[in-house]
Structure formats: structure tokens, C-alpha cells
């Protein structure tokens, strides 16, 4: 079975005025379809950097990255953008919902970008808002939602185009413990429905839900726990 | 070898020549040469533009005629070239002019049928002992010589004077421009204030009073407004050179079209600074009146 993501010798260095900073050092990583992986580690160890590389949001300074067998380095930006739209879903710590759109419109946006028809978009959006338990808040704007509700809308948005891989960067970072549990439950459902998940988190509850737990330290990936 | 004799036929044709009556003491030319020995042609000064247009050099002999058909032409020696006094009323006209001694011009233009034409001039310029008494002198002249028009060279107080009207026009344009830019300034200030909503909320939570925050906003607005106003003045000073050079080249004149004076710079600063401060205050005012909870809440 082709791994959904395979990285070999991934290194990412950031040039800084005070000297280059190596966020990732020679990281090799492989993920099967429908796997659920949690990555933990201290702040600044490179977790988010690795996530960005996996999601084709950033490019490694050296090393190779294959996404569903395709060498990401050989792809154009529009191809990488297409992968992000159709094969990857992102969930952010700060939600990043568009404040001028309501929940329904936020979830609908990636589908419109992909060119889905109106009827298909409506059906899918309704389905997703039901899925995350916010069908009755569809016409509420982010300013009218709680933190947990906003994150659920963000998850629904990330799942809009049925991605193969869901990447979550500290999804419970701005939420309380109970709300974090709810998000963790949601991720369990998403995983059970066949979507691969990589979650970067400080939350031990969330980390325990994953089937693989990787620890990062100073840009290097440790052994599975 | 003397300078080649050039003949200019009928400088009066096409209205190319405006003969300006002056006495020799008012010559402001560059180089003036004495007549070479044995040559008795009267002297003429040509404007720089005419010299170039007629392809004539200093020292050349030219023929000057007041009649359109060139009859009754008189030979003159070009003894110098001068830069015409810039005249804003004639800035787009080609300054093809010549200056003759008064007796020569009067002899050139007199009409045999009109004895009075030998003693006719267009204007007489006066330099007064008491410059503040222009009106009194004008009235006295009008009494002695009825029908004479007397005008002071001081800027006119007549609201319908050409330049007074143009001044009003420019002010109107300036007011419109400032109004438009004020709208944009307010828009930017509103955006800026909204951007800092969280910070203001946090400060208020910490106990910093609205007055202190207002003072900070005021101070910041003042610094930005002063810097912006000074930058604007510098930009105007820098661009006035470019504008003047362009239009002086375009119209072949030495007229100064734009001049940023100290008074104008002060006016601009005096206008811009309060406007900038007021815009910042106005934009921040609504934020400062909101409750702390609404500032830090989503």
C-alpha cells in the first residue's frame, strides 16, 4: 500500500539575521492511509514545521517528500495548491475562520473553490454541520460562536472536500479541557470514517487518542511511543 | 571679418515682433556690443527666442519694419540678446520681441498722415518717490490728463482681478483635495483603531484609564501628523523643481510656475497637523467609549 505521505531526510532551515535556525534535522517519516498520528514535543521543537511540510504548505531545505507517491518538489505551486484543496484538510489553533462569513459559508468556501455545483455544496455543507453538531448554528458568524464551536466549524471546513489527510496544529490550544475532549471525540469519528490524521498537540488527552505517538525534540523525530 | 549681414524681412509680418518701448537705461540684456567703427546702424536687442527663431547672431544687421508688408524697413545692428521678463499672462506665447531705443521706435512707427503718431506711446512706467501714494498719484494724473488709464503694479484688491480669481480657484481645488484625502485618512485611522482593539482592551483591563489611552493616541497622532506634514512639504519642495523645469522647457520661458514659500509651508503644516490628530482621535473615540468586555471579547 502506497503511504499517503513519505518523507526522507527532511531538513528545514530558516535564515535569520542572527544566524540560520534549523527547525527540522534529517527527519524521515512515513504514514499509511487512514493512520492517526499524534506528534508532541516542547515548544520550538519543529512540530508545526513538520506539519507544514506534510501539508505541502512549505518546502524542505533538503530531503524529499512524496505525497501519495508524487514528489512534491517537482510539483508547481498550483499543483501543490490543488493537493491542499482536494487531498489535505487543515485545522489551525486559531481557527482562522473568515469573520464576515457565517458557519455555513465558511464550510462551503473550499467546495466552491473546487467547483462543486450548488446542490452538491448544499448537501455536503448540511451533512458536515450535522456531523460536527452545529446544524442549528449554520447562520451564525464566528463572532457569535464559542471557541469550541468555531473549532468544530473549522474541522467541518477542513473536511469539506473529503481529504485523505487531516492535519491539525494544536487544535485544542485555545480551548478548555472539556471542549478539548469534544474535539478529540470528533477526531476519533473522522479517523473512524477513514481519514488519516496527524495532530500536533501539547494536550496529552488528544495525544493518547492517536494510534501512533511521535515525540519531537530539537528538530529530530524520536521513536514511536 | 565682420559678422555676416542677415536680413530679416518684415518682422512685423504675423505679429512676430512686439516692440517694447524702453529707454536705454532699462536694458537687461546679456552682451551688448558697440557698433563697429564706420557703421552707423541703430541698435536693437532681440529676445533669446527671436534670436533663435530668426537664426540671427549678435552683431548681425537686420531689417525691422512695423508694416505687415515689410515696407519702410530700417536696418538695425543686433547688439545683444535678452531674456524677456516672464509674464504669466503670456506664458504660452512665443516671446518673439525686440527692444529699440525710444526715438528709433517712434521713428519706425510714425505715420505721415498722423502728426501725433510721432509722439505716441503705449504706456509710461513711473517709479514713485512714495510707493504708498500710488492712488493719489493716479488720481492726480487722471485730473490733469483726462481719459488716461492709471494702474498700480501692486497686487490688485479687485476681487475680479485675473490672479485674484485664479487664487480663489486654486483654493477651491485645494479644499476639495483635502476633503477627499480626509475621508481616506479617516478610513485608515478607523482600520488602525480596530486593529488595536485588543491592545486597548488589555490596557483597560489592566487598569489604564481611558484618559491615559486617549493622551497616548493624541501624542501618537500628533507625531505621525507632524512627520506626515513635513514629509508632504519636502515632497512639494522637491517636486516644485521638477514642475518648474518641465513647464519652463515646455513653454520656453523663465517664468516660475510653482513656488513653495515659507508661508505656504506653514499653512500646509498648520492645516495638516490638526486634521491628522483630529482624525486619529475621531477614529479612536468610539473604541474608548466601548466597555472593556466588548473590547477584549470576540
Amino acid at each position, binding site marked *: 500500500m502506497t503511504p499517503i505521505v513519505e518523507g526522507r531526510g527532511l531538513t528545514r532551515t530558516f535564515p535569520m539575521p542572527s544566524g540560520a535556525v534549523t527547525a527540522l534535522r534529517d527527519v524521515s517519516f512515513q504514514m499509511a492511509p487512514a493512520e492517526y498520528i499524534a506528534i508532541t514535543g516542547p515548544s520550538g521543537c519543529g512540530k508545526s514545521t513538520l506539519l507544514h511540510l506534510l501539508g505541502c504548505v512549505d518546502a524542505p531545505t533538503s530531503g524529499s517528500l512524496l505525497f501519495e507517491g508524487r514528489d512534491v518538489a517537482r510539483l508547481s505551486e498550483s499543483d501543490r495548491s490543488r493537493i*491542499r484543496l482536494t487531498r489535505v484538510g487543515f485545522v489551525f489553533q486559531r481557527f*482562522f475562520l473568515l469573520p464576515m462569513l457565517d458557519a455555513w459559508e465558511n464550510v462551503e468556501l473550499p467546495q466552491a473553490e473546487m467547483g462543486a455545483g450548488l446542490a452538491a455544496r448544499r448537501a455536503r455543507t448540511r451533512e458536515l454541520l450535522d456531523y460536527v453538531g452545529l446544524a442549528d448554528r449554520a447562520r451564525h458568524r464566528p463572532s457569535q460562536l464559542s471557541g469550541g464551536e468555531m473549532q468544530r466549524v473549522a474541522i467541518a471546513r477542513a473536511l469539506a472536500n473529503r481529504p485523505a489527510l487531516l492535519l491539525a496544529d494544536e487544535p485544542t490550544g485555545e480551548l478548555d479541557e472539556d471542549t478539548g475532549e469534544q474535539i478529540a471525540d470528533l477526531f476519533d469519528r473522522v479517523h473512524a470514517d477513514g481519514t488519516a490524521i496527524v495532530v500536533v498537540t501539547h494536550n496529552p488527552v488528544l495525544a493518547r487518542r492517536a494510534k501512533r505517538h511521535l515525540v519531537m525534540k530539537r528538530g529530530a523525530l524520536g521513536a514511536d511511543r | 571679418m565682420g559678422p555676416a549681414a542677415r536680413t530679416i524681412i518684415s518682422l512685423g*509680418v504675423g505679429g512676430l515682433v512686439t516692440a517694447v518701448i524702453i529707454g536705454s537705461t532699462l536694458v537687461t540684456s546679456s552682451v551688448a556690443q558697440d557698433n563697429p567703427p564706420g557703421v552707423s546702424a541703430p541698435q536693437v536687442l532681440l529676445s533669446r527666442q527671436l534670436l533663435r527663431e530668426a537664426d540671427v547672431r549678435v552683431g548681425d544687421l537686420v531689417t525691422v519694419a512695423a508694416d505687415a508688408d515689410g515696407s519702410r524697413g530700417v536696418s538695425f545692428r543686433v547688439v545683444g540678446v535678452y531674456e524677456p521678463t516672464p509674464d504669466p499672462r503670456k506664458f*504660452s506665447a512665443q516671446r518673439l520681441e525686440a527692444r529699440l531705443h525710444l526715438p528709433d521706435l517712434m521713428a519706425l512707427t510714425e505715420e505721415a498722415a498722423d502728426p501725433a503718431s510721432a509722439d505716441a506711446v503705449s504706456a509710461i512706467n513711473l517709479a514713485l518717490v512714495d510707493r504708498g501714494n500710488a492712488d493719489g498719484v493716479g488720481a492726480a494724473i487722471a485730473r490733469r490728463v483726462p*481719459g488716461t488709464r492709471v494702474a498700480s503694479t501692486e497686487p490688485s484688491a479687485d476681487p475680479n482681478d485675473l490672479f485674484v480669481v485664479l487664487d480663489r480657484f486654486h483654493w477651491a481645488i485645494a479644499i476639495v483635495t483635502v476633503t477627499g484625502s480626509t475621508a*481616506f485618512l479617516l478610513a485608515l485611522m478607523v*482600520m488602525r483603531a480596530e486593529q488595536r482593539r485588543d491592545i486597548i482592551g488589555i490596557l483597560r483591563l489592566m487598569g489604564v484609564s481611558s484618559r491615559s489611552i486617549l493622551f497616548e493616541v493624541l501624542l501618537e497622532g500628533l507625531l505621525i501628523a507632524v512627520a506626515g506634514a513635513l514629509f508632504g512639504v519636502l515632497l512639494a519642495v522637491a517636486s516644485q523643481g521638477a514642475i518648474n523645469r518641465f513647464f519652463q522647457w515646455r513653454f520656453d520661458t523663465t517664468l516660475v510656475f510653482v513656488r513653495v514659500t515659507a508661508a505656504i509651508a506653514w499653512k500646509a503644516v498648520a492645516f495638516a497637523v490638526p486634521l491628522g490628530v483630529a482624525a486619529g482621535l475621531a477614529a479612536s473615540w468610539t473604541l474608548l467609549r466601548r466597555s472593556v468586555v466588548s473590547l477584549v471579547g470576540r
Partner: protein
Amino acid sequence: MTSRALAWRTAAAEPARAALAIAGVAVIGALLFDMLMLSQGLLVSFREMLDTSGYDVRVVASDVFPARVDLTNASEVAADIARLPEVRQVTIVRTDRAVVLVPGRAPTDVALLNLSPGAERQGWRIVDGADLGALGPQESAAPAVISRQLSRALGLSPGSPLPLRALASGAASALPIVGFTVVGIADFQFENDGPYVLATTFEAFQRARASVSSDTADVILVASRPSIDASATVAAIAGRRRDVHAFSNEQIVERFNENGFAYFRQISFVLSTITLGFAFLLVATLLTVAVNQRLGQVAALRALGVSRRRIASTLVWESALLVGTGGLLSLPLGWILALGLDRILRDMPNIPDALHFFVFEPRLALWHLALLAATGLAAAVYPVWVATRLPIAATLRFETVS
């Protein structure tokens, strides 16, 4: 959701900012529209003023227009020109400067005017009283038809006596006062030297100037036959009379355009350019600040797979909404502003009533909108570049940490 809808929602989410930006564009756009009107307004108005006078050729003594010397033997020249097959009508125009001396009022400068008999209907329109010829031959006072402005300024009405002294330029003497009687008040139809005009008969005109024997005139107006082009008439006159110079209306307009109107052409060009540059800077600044405020959102959308093209088109639509709405509002605003500016400029001396500086032409509105549209597009270039080229990962990181 389309880019246009997204742009609209973005603008509607910040109504104060959007309203202020649109107001700014409207005001600056109004100024731009006015400068476009000014660039050709005087020319268009002048041409219209000449054309509606009913004459298409003007004959003067010199080859510059306006002429500085008088036409001599004007009657003979006019009669000769009238015999040309191309010519339908000829009118001699004589003007001079005079001062009216109404008791109890300050001396008032007026333009003294005389037209060939029969041409009065084209020269002025009586609004009160009667035309020249109303006074019988037994009257000693000369008849005068005066302009409305003069009658208002001096409180004159038909029947009012009007002492007048013509001004003799270049002569160290004063002409005697001549008594006139106002017979009518009129609106003068074509170009005049100021608002105060007094028209009279040839005999009275000569008497005022104490030049009974001279037959000089300022200009001879010629109307071509309907099927004849003005240029043909000009050529015919040039062929018949070498001592005069004929100009068609088009030639006169061209000469004024080169000299007299240069200031307004230049200022309209300069201000149009500055206004466009101003609008560009302001809209670009506004959009750039707006993009900088939303970098996190933009980065998140890019991370979700929204294309650069979509981001770019949304921003272009935002610019189009601001500039387009402001541009449409600027048309009526510009028209109102033009009325005020025109009134200011018409205070200048010697501006005929029929002459306007700001003249609306439909093509100018199209030019105006096209220029604003181009400016809006250009203003969006930098913010689009910022939004589409931002480093997604670094921006996400920064927005999360800050």
C-alpha cells in the same frame, strides 16, 4: 461563493471603512471629472458660442486674431465681400471703450457697440423697451440699447438719460460727453468685452468718438450660404481682398486654443494627473493595510487550497467595488462642483456670458470611469502581490504566535 460576493461581504463587514473609502474616491473622482471637463470645456464652449452667433467667418485687418489694428474702409470692404457668391450675410462690428457718467454713481466702464443695420436681431434680444430706431429723428439724444447687467448696476430703464464719454486711447485729450437715451434693455448674444454693453447707431457711435469721417471697424462678420463650407468662404475672401484677413470659426478656435486657453489645458492636465496619482496611492494604501490585517486569513485560505487566482480576484473585486461605487458617485458630485468652480472662474474680467469653463460631454464621463477603473486595477497590484506571494507557513506561524 464567487470572488465578487466575497469582496462584497468583506466590504459590508466594515461599513464605516468602506463608506469613508467610497466617499474619498467620490470626492477625488469629482475633481478628476471636473479637470476632464476643464481640459476641453473652454474650447467647446467658445466654439459653440462662435457657431451659435450665426456667422462662420470673421474678417480683420491683421493676420492675428484678435486683431490689434482696425479695418479701414469697412463699408467698402463689407460691400465687396457681400457680393461674393459664397456669402449670405455680412455685418460690420464696431466697438470701443467708453465711460458712462450717471449722476450719483461712479463712472462705469462700458463696451460701446455698433452693428450694421439689420444685424441687431443677431446681436441682441430686447427684453424691455424697444430697439434702436425707436427715437424719432427729432430727438437730440442718441439711442442706446444696454445690457441687463448695466441696467441693474446703474438703475437704468427705458427712457433714462445716459451721458457717455468715449475713451480715446493714445491721445492726450478727452472726448466730449455725448448724451444718450436708453431705449431698450437686451441680452447680448455673442462675445462681448465684459458684462456692461451699450449698443447704438452708427451715427451716434461716430459722434461719441468724434470721428465722423472715419469708417473703421473692429471686425466684419460673415455668414456663408448654407451649402458653402466656411473654408471656401475664407478662400474666396482672400482671393478678392488682399488687404484683409479672414478666419473661419475653426481657425479662431485653434488660435485661442494655442494661446489663450493654454493655462486651463495645462492645469487640467496637471491636476488630472495628480488626482489619478492621489487616488491610486490612497486606494493602494487602503487595500494594502486591509490585506495586512488579514494575512492570517489569507494564509489559512491558501493552506486550505484556495488558489492565488481566487485570492487575487477577490482583492481586485474589493478595489473595483470601492473605486466603482465612488466613481459613479463622483459624476453627480463633480457636476455640482463644476457649477461652483465655473462660477468662480467666470468672475474673471471680460468673460462673455455664454462662455463656460466646464462643459459636460458624454465621452468625458466614459473617459472618467475608464481612468478610475484603470487606477483601481493598478492600485490592487501591490496588495494582490502581497497576498498571493505571502509565505504560507511563516505567516501561519507568525499569526499564531502574535
